[in-house]
């Protein structure tokens, strides 16, 4: 059997090791470790893990997410956070006073919110909460989606990539852990920032990403 190298691309069912320890993205049958995803291999000593190329968002407690209001009820809002399960925002879990029965005065259909997943029920539906000063309604409606396995590339080492996008476009950029990216700022800056997000989503395997995104942002800003 050939030895699996670091950063090698594997398909589901590939035999990774015959007596190793399976990490994330792998499953074991007896002593054999197999890949579970189409993704890249990471080898640490004896431990092998696979990080998928694409993945779906499954909510966990403590995730900070960006969601869209899709339902207004008398006591709660229904929120779309791009997960396969139903998500609610209760009228008591917001950082402003509400009056029951008039919830659309505060958050109407289609509004964007930044919130935290704070409870997962046994049936997998989730509750989000806006308590806390850093959560709330988002004013601009310009959002883009990025696959959640590519968020680390968008943020970069110690936030280098996201800070560069913020500086060069003069925009605020907020990344939810569910893969929704919200931007606010001058009109041309927003377009440039969203173009950069799209570029990273499509070309995330590139080597010197910071340099190509810098070039992209300079070009886009020159044209707008």
């Amino acid at each position, binding site marked *: 059997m050939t030895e699996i190298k670091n950063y090698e*691309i*594997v*398909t*589901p*069912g*590939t*035999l990774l090791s015959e007596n190793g320890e399976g990490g994330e*993205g792998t*499953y074991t049958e007896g002593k054999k470790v*197999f890949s*579970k*995803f*189409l*993704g890249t291999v990471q080898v640490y000593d004896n431990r092998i893990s696979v990080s*998928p*190329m*694409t*993945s*779906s968002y*499954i909510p966990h407690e403590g995730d900070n997410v960006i969601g869209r209001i899709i339902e207004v009820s008398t006591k709660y809002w229904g929120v779309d956070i791009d997960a*396969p*399960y*139903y998500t609610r925002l209760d009228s008591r879990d917001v950082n402003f006073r509400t009056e029951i029965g008039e919830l659309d005065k505060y958050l109407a259909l289609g509004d964007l919110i930044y919130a935290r997943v704070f409870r997962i029920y046994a*049936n*997998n539906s989730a509750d989000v909460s806006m308590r806390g000063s850093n959560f709330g309604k988002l004013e601009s409606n310009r959002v883009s989606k990025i696959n959640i*396995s590519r968020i680390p590339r968008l943020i970069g080492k110690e936030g280098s990539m996201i800070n560069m996008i913020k500086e060069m476009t003069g925009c605020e950029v907020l990344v939810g852990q569910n893969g929704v990216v919200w931007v606010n700022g001058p009109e041309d800056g927003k377009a440039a920032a969203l173009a950069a997000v799209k570029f990273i989503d*499509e*070309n995330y*395997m*590139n*080597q010197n990403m910071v340099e190509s995104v810098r070039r992209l942002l300079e070009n886009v800003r020159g044209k707008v």
Partner: protein
Amino acid sequence: MYEERFDKRGFDELRPMEAETGIIPNAKGSARFRIGNTEAIAAVYGPEEVKPKHFEKVDKGIIMCKYDMLPFSVPDRAKPGMDRRDMEISDVITNALNRAVILEEFPRSMITVRVYVTQADAGTRCASLTAASMACADAGLPMRDLVAAVAAGKIGDSICLDLTKEEEDFHEGGATDVPIGFLPSKNEIVLLQLDGKVTKEELSRIVEMGKLGAMKIYELEKSVLQGRFSNESKS
């Protein structure tokens, strides 16, 4: 007697194959698989909320698969929509994928798989299953293995791999068609149907030949799925 195949292939040779992934931007994952004149495209959506609700399972997700032959795929126009044959094939593809995809990771959710046959020349259920499994891998679903499916069979007295429509309709001696779905690295059969008449000993020879053919399809699937990402890094 059937001594030489109509298209001059060897008895254990597959028709020329071609595959591609990521062809449908709106789908989570998609793939196109062509073998000879048979071509299938598959799209995977989800996981999403289960609808209708009573299909929901509390401990695992479900796969909803629909197979459809497009009207222009066969010489006589195929009536659009699901007929009894389409429903049967949808079911066998769902059963095969249930074994390949690790559904326990998405409880109470649904994965939608749509497969369309754009050209049919026998072996459509195998081409569809191969395309569907590639689309599932492209969508980033956790899987035990990729499914490689191929039809094998007996024409006259000879055992053949990957039958065409012309061969399936062979009259002298009759033709038997055995579609096989295979998880190559698990050595596990997930689809086995038989249409015709064979002895027990012949059937095991047909299955052995089908497994060898499936291995070639598996190699193609792997190289296409890996190649998509290494090409992106070059551009």
